């Protein structure tokens, strides 16, 4: 089969993150190719380069074997490339017909546009009410509208970025049917997905990206979920990870430690409001334990952690957490800190009422400032003074400040989301040391990281979350075994 889209030796760097390092990708006519990879492997970036949303630092893009510089999505569409984004891009206040016309670049009388869009949805077998406002559509229909929008320009190449992530199995099946029909009629499709079973069933070829390079490409017939998982997570030695610094396998705390977190039959809704994120969660964490949650994004770990941290109200079930609770949120600048406030004020924010410098609702700022100065010194936060605005610090120092604030209260329970995201090696090591010290001091620690290696490195116990279900990984579990537990689609047992 002739290649229709080729991406050769693509490099792309975003600030300090090397998203793609020499990725090669070929799409041939009439095929459905699944593109797999962990979060941050570079899947979306690669597709955005093909669609003209991102310019590569190096490498070549060829369409029909001719080198092309795709500088904008408009140019990509003229070359016959369509993209279905990971998030919804319809204008909520416009009708379905108007949204389709907007995406396809049609002009004319509204009645005409309405008829044209109706004809299109009929032809595609994806019925939609043309007069409904996009904002009023259900999630399933919104997703359908996104597909129709991408197909409205009659592309030959369709790139789909996790189109089934929000769909129920039956709806996902229907969507996969549409993609297959598109390929049978001569089109070529790339399907980014986290669902390995889906990739194995729907694709003619499976390609795996890992840390910005293609680590595997081939027919799904020769693959199993486990072998794909290994390609995604890396060919690490298939033995239990024993490392001198790793907490796991080193000091299993005595079971006599006081229980600080206990949940049973816990259910938590998705943050978006659609559906259940945590199904029937049960977990016990004792004083001194560091428990890591291994999960692929969107499997309920965020909701689990936030419910335990008291930031999200669970739907039902038992949840007992000792106070005070320290919480390190994922997003430093929008949730962890207020960039426009001083470091002192940001430290005071986390303390709330229990701070020693608060007396009957009155804040003694001088005392808070002194305490902040101590924290900056103890936690090696590089800042000129406690009066500096938090927004002026580097990411690593902001994160250290948050950790300092949360640990200064001597929490009984510490919950952390991606505590070292985007940090360099030394900042990461320093934060890991702090978390270990907190556990050593008797805190129960629960954390999640998108980086499986970090979970294995820092945690003494690993629990895996997949599709809202919580499973404890056996202490002897290897990296690959945990990897396939993360990607398992059916409930175990």
């Amino acid at each position: 089969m002739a290649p229709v889209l080729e991406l050769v030796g693509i490099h792309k760097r975003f600030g300090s993150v090397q998203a793609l390092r020499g990725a090669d990708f070929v799409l041939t006519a009439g095929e459905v190719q699944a593109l797999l990879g962990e979060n941050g492997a570079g899947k979306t970036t690669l597709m955005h380069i093909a669609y003209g949303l991102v310019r590569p630092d190096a490498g070549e893009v060829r369409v029909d074997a001719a080198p092309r510089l795709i500088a904008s999505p408009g140019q990509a569409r003229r070359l016959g490339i369509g993209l279905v984004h990971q998030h919804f891009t319809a204008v909520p206040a416009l009708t379905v017909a108007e949204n389709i016309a907007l995406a396809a670049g049609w002009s004319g009388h509204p009645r005409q546009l309405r008829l044209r869009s109706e004809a299109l949805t009929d032809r595609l077998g994806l019925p939609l009410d043309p007069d409904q406002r996009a904002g009023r559509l259900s999630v399933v229909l919104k997703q359908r509208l996104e597909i129709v929008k991408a197909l409205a320009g009659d592309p030959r190449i369709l790139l789909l970025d996790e189109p089934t992530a929000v769909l129920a199995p039956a709806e996902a099946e229907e969507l996969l049917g549409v993609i297959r029909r598109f390929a049978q009629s001569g089109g070529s499709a790339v399907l980014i997905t986290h669902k390995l079973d889906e990739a194995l069933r729907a694709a003619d070829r499976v390609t795996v990206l890992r840390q910005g390079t293609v680590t595997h490409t081939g027919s799904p017939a020769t693959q199993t979920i486990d072998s794909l998982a290994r390609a995604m997570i890396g060919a690490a030695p298939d033995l239990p990870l024993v490392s001198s610094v790793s907490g796991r396998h080193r000091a299993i705390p005595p079971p006599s430690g006081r229980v600080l977190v206990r949940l049973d039959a816990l259910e938590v809704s998705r943050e978006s409001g659609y559906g259940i994120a945590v199904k029937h969660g049960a977990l016990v964490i004792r004083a001194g334990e560091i428990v890591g949650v291994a999960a692929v994004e969107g499997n309920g770990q965020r909701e689990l952690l936030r419910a335990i941290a008291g930031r999200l109200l669970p739907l039902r079930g038992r949840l007992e957490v000792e106070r005070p609770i320290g919480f390190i949120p994922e997003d430093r600048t929008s949730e962890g800190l207020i960039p426009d406030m001083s470091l002192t004020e940001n430290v005071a924010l986390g303390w709330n009422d229990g701070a020693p410098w608060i007396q009957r609702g009155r804040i003694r700022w001088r005392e808070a400032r002194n305490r902040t100065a101590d924290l900056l010194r103890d936690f090696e936060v590089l800042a000129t003074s406690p009066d500096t605005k938090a927004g002026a610090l580097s990411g690593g120092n902001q994160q250290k400040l948050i950790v300092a604030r949360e640990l200064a209260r001597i929490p009984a329970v510490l919950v952390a989301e991606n505590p070292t995201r985007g940090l360099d090696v030394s900042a990461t090591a320093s934060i890991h040391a702090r978390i270990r010290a907190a556990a050593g001091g008797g805190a129960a620690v629960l954390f999640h990281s998108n980086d499986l290696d970090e979970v294995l490195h820092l945690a003494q116990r690993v629990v895996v979350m997949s599709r809202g279900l919580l499973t404890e990984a056996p202490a002897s579990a290897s990296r690959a075994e945990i990897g396939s537990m993360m990607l398992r689609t059916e409930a175990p047992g």
Partner: protein
Amino acid sequence: MIRIWWGLLAILLGLAVLAGWLEAMGYDAPLALGALWTGAFGSWYNFTSATLVRSVPLILIGLGIATAFRGGAFNIGAEGQFYAGAIAATWVGLHVTAGPGILALVLLLITSAIAGAAWVAVPVWLKLRFGVIEVISTLLLNFVAEAMVSLLVQGPLQERSGIYPQSDLILDTARLPLIGGRLHAGFLLALAAVVVLWYLFARTMWGFRLRAVGLSPRAAEVSGSIDSSKMAATALLCSGALAGLAGGVEVSGVSYALYQNLSPGYGFTGIAVALLGGLHPVGVLISGIFIAALEAGAGAMQRDAGVPSVAVYVVEAIIIVVAALATTPKGGLMTTQVIRRIRPRAARARA
């Protein structure tokens, strides 16, 4: 520090445009600006009885709007809350006859504040319950309040003689004492409000939480365990109470009666006062007095130089635009750069 420069820049720009306009229209600019100054600050009487009297409602409303802004809410309905307070004050001032001397006055002030808060409670409820944007709901309720005043002064609250569409004069016991010229004790109340709010913002957990919510509702919730929407609602209620109090003070200290157009747009000018004052209580005090001086001087300018008094609204408008620009990150950066460029030059000029 930058905020003060901002305010000065806004004022200078406004006055410069006014001077240029006066010249262009063929007025005697020095004479007109001189009259503007004399009318506002020319004598102790002018300063207290014209400028400070006008400043009282502006300061109270400005403080309220600043409180809402600090808490991340936009109160565009101070005009309506002012009238709600004025209506309640008038009712108390006409009817409460019993009790010791000061009771009627205290009751009047408290009731007017409650009425202002109650008027904004409707938008607050709509916001919490249905997510209605308070910018729109508070604004629309202004018209309702104005229509209500109009209805009342031609109906149940109309003077007994039934000639003019206004209420009877309130009882002497419900009036604020005068403290010099026409200046009434409401000015002291405004000063007290400045001190109280300064203390709340700078020294208390409540004020700190309010500021946190205003700067980042998400971080306030996640890292500070603060209920952001409740905090914003509280800020709006306080804002309404202050605007209502302004209405009560105006009735009790200046007009002694309720009538239509009691407010020459205090509720809107108050937004300019709050922004020009950098949302800081002391800044609001200064900017409130400044805007009041401008309006007091406008009358003198019309009398002595024949310039229509509305000309000063040009200055106000420019101040609003510049002050609003200051609140945007891009605008703030821009003016900071302008100021950096001007400052060394000014320093050289002084040397």
